């Protein structure tokens, strides 16, 4: 018996192995340094251009001529070398990879820490830096230390306004910011199988905030049905649910809406503890919470009302944006006074759009509330979409469910 990571990597925990990577990707934030390093490595042939993708999502569209020039270099390289390329407006790398680009059992490496998001498909998906990625461009493979695994057994179903983000933040608090360092997490139990694909992606996404290499769900009928909508016929993975270094149990039915208080993602408190805290900005989006399910939740709460403070909404991909337009929820979001950004993730890291000022407070559905991340002297509180929506209407932190 073996953990899912051991099965995919084909070796026991603790082993150092070299493995061919099924798919690898960079974005505009990490691609420039990857390209520079790849050239320094000799930069002749790419081992597998069809396995490589470049996504423009971090500063998309470009904010100034320096960024534009750097992006242009990467854009031209992608075109010349036959890499899959998604230009501005396409969306966030993890979301786009997740729209049919990742299959159960694959090894996925991205030059971004939130690559663990794609573990939601039962793939071994992990982040690396630019030099590791440059070596993957050149050789098609990389080294791994096969991780030990922490099991998180989920039971029951989310209820009320609690959502996957609340569950994910609760798990981060349970493990701590380095509780899964050098390890993988597997989400198992009947509670895992009740979750939608969008919800699983949110939960896997936050695995890295505990230091984890990846956060895995076993592929089940929900996964198979989701991938079928993108033209892939895959089989479920049989859970072995064994060999965990440590196992935690979480009753999903008991999860309540929570907030991560700056500057730590594991500093988690019930929303009710912070109710009334004045806000300057609300941000809904990112690789954590910018999917259709999220926008739909937002629309449901703010429909027919007006937000009280500036509220920024960034769909995770063009596909999400198109769906939102088709079903009418985009109109609800715009009519409520939200500012809709092009698909991308710029505000999350304070790189582009939605930067906050000195002493400003932003309530965000993103994944990091580190000091100064969205702007020098500003503070970031992390929450679910429902909490963000209710708070946007109130202009202060408020639990969903009490809106007039």
């Amino acid at each position: 018996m073996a953990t899912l990571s051991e099965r995919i990597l084909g070796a026991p925990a603790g082993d150092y192995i070299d493995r061919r990577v099924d798919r690898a990707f960079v974005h505009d934030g990490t691609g420039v340094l990857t390209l520079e390093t790849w050239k320094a490595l000799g930069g002749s042939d790419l081992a597998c251009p069809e396995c490589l993708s470049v996504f423009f999502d971090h500063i998309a569209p470009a904010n100034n001529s320096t960024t534009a020039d750097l992006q242009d270099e990467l854009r031209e390289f992608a075109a010349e070398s036959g890499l899959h390329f998604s230009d501005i407006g396409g969306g966030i790398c993890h979301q786009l990879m997740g729209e049919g680009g990742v299959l159960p059992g694959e090894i996925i490496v991205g030059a971004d820490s939130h690559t663990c998001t794609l573990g939601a498909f039962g793939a071994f998906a992990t982040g690396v830096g630019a030099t590791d990625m440059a070596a993957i461009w050149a050789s098609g493979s990389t080294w791994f230390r096969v991780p030990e695994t922490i099991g998180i057994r989920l039971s029951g179903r989310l209820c009320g306004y609690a959502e996957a983000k609340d569950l994910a933040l609760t798990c981060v608090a349970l493990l701590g910011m380095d509780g899964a360092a050098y390890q993988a997490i597997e989400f198992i139990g009947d509670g895992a199988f009740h979750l939608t694909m969008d919800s699983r992606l949110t939960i896997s996404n936050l695995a890295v905030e505990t230091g984890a290499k990846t956060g895995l769900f076993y592929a089940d009928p929900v996964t198979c049905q989701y991938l079928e909508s993108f033209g892939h016929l895959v089989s479920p993975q049989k859970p072995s649910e064994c060999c965990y270094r440590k196992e935690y149990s979480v009753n999903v039915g008991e999860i309540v809406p929570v907030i991560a208080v700056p500057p730590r993602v594991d500093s988690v408190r019930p929303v009710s503890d912070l109710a009334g805290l004045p806000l300057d900005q609300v941000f809904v989006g990112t690789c954590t919470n910018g999917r259709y399910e999220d926008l739909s939740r937002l629309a449901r709460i703010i429909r027919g009302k007006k937000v009280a403070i500036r509220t920024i909404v960034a769909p995770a991909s063009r596909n999400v944006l198109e769906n939102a337009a088709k079903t009418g929820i985009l109109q609800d979001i715009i009519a409520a006074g939200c500012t809709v950004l092009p698909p991308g993730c710029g505000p999350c890291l304070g790189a582009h759009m939605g930067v906050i000022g000195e002493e400003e407070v932003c309530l965000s559905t993103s994944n990091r509330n580190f000091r100064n991340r969205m702007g020098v002297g500003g503070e970031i509180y992390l929450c679910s979409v429902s909490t963000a929506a209710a708070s946007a209407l109130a202009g202060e932190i408020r639990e969903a469910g009490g809106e007039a």
Partner: protein
Amino acid sequence: MRIEGQAVCLPADIDTDLIIAGRYLRTKDRSIWAARVFEDLDPGLAGRLKGSVIVAGKNFGCGSSREQAAVALKEAGVAGIIAPSFARIFFRNAINVGLPLAEADLPCIEGERVIIDLSAGRVCSESTERSTAPLSTRMLEIISAGGLVEFWRKRS
């Protein structure tokens, strides 16, 4: 491989946003990263890093995968980093850019002389000695070469 420097003490969970802020990533100019390293933690710290060994708490380098964080520290003159644990992407990045690191829980006194002996697998200050988690031969070779790029060049 032996590295020596003056200790700069830092707390646990130093994230890569604190090492180099997102607003400085859109450039290829490494001197900007070196000048701005730790700006949001202590604006004066960048100037004190030359020849230093950072002795930090656990989970050093957590957060974003930005390799500019490891590059910034190296360019600012950091000789090595000692911490009980590192975030795994930062750990790989540091090795890949030839920045020595050692996993050990060494009590830190600001300015004290500290030594990292990677070959022997130990670190010490004037008062304390600790053994470190061993690095693989390949990792040691990459660090000795000055990074993965130099390591590949030497091999080819």
